């Protein structure tokens, strides 16, 4: 069963075509084939959120998606979204508030938080907690992460006011 499929995936804006085995997870494809090691793997069954990547504009678990399923999709990782500057405000605030220690969970936290900031610009602290519930952090105790996200949301809201 060493069947291969040719998959064309747009990763961080650039189309790549590779032969992949069906059993290969998207996260392993990104890390092992493309060297994009910013997204991490830990639990490999959907619980921790370390592998969060963006598929066609929405966050997903990279460990619960096969590379073949991403054929024809557009995938963004923490590397691409850092280069584009999209994560800049969150990264700055995470840095200011020590919202990371070992940093293992951070790429997943940033991608998840960015989807929140984009889709729920009025999120309350409680809603931030709900939205971030699928991302585990073994270091920070979460408060500083929630603080950082809240700060970005509040700052944007102030900026949006006339």
């Amino acid at each position, binding site marked *: 069963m*060493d069947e291969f*499929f040719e998959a064309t995936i747009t990763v961080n804006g650039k189309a790549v075509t590779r032969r992949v*085995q069906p059993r290969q*997870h998207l996260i392993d494809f990104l890390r092992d084939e493309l060297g994009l090691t910013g997204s991490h793997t830990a639990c490999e069954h959907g619980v921790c959120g370390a592998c969060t990547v963006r598929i066609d504009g*929405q966050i997903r678990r990279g460990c619960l998606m*096969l590379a073949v399923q991403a054929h024809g999709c557009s995938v963004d990782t923490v590397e691409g979204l850092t280069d584009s500057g999209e994560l800049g405000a969150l990264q700055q605030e995470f840095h200011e508030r020590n919202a990371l220690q070992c940093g293992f969970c951070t790429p997943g936290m940033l991608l998840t938080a960015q*989807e929140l900031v984009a889709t729920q610009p009025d999120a309350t602290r409680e809603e931030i*907690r709900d939205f971030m519930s699928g991302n585990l952090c073994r270091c920070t105790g979460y408060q500083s992460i929630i603080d950082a996200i809240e700060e970005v949301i509040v700052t944007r809201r102030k900026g949006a006011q006339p």
Partner: protein
Amino acid sequence: MKAAPFAYAKPGSLREAFALLERHGDRAKLLAGGQSLIAALNMRLATPSILVDLTAIPGIDGIQLRGDHLAIGALVRHREIERSELVAKHAPLLSQAAPHIAHVAIRNAGTIGGSLAMADPAAEWPACCVALEAHIVAASPKGERRIPATKFFKSLFTTALAPREIITAVEVPVAGANTRSAFLELVRRRGDYAIVGLAAHTQLERGALTRLRLVYLGVGDAPVSAAGAMEKLEGKRATPEAIAAAQAALEQDLSPAADLTHSAATKLHLARVLLGRALAALVT
């Protein structure tokens, strides 16, 4: 862990999918959102020889209002239901339940068809579909049949689906002016599977609860209708006495098994708490 090797096919029609199922029999597994199946493959709880990816099959996605029901395609993602205005208007119980399913990254991928086929007794969609008296539409080479949700969930991870049937849609009766619904669940952390959850649905006729449906999740092998509690409340107002009688009836209705952190007695207590809260929500 990594999944064992398997082959992969992405049929472009139901007919092609049936042919693949015919050819590979039990060694084939249908793949929708993958949020249960790929986790099971990773842990090697499932080792199919081929995955049949349903996501390129036309006509089994999308949400449509069709007369007296809302047709929700099998491939519709949890998150789509959560954000759908059609659903909020015509099947508000589903909008209330959606945010309790897993986490956003999982809701962006997981489908309602996959959840119904999976039949996890702690999952939200099965209990909602039973409470709403929805129908599950299943297709096979022989044609299509509409299975009442009340007869669909047989036991733990077991449904009325025949081996090679594919869920294509779920049909939910649309809410009327007097329809009220409430979805409540208790979890240790947002997005976890429910410790106990309750899907409640009624037609409120001049303050009285009629056609009341109280369906619990997380307390049995499948969604559990609280028949005794429903009977105590049918046609009545939610007075403190009626609520207390219904809460007492739950002792007969439910026989929850203990889980790792909650005894059976705790679960029964929590089921009563949820009943009180749900009734308050239905009548306000």
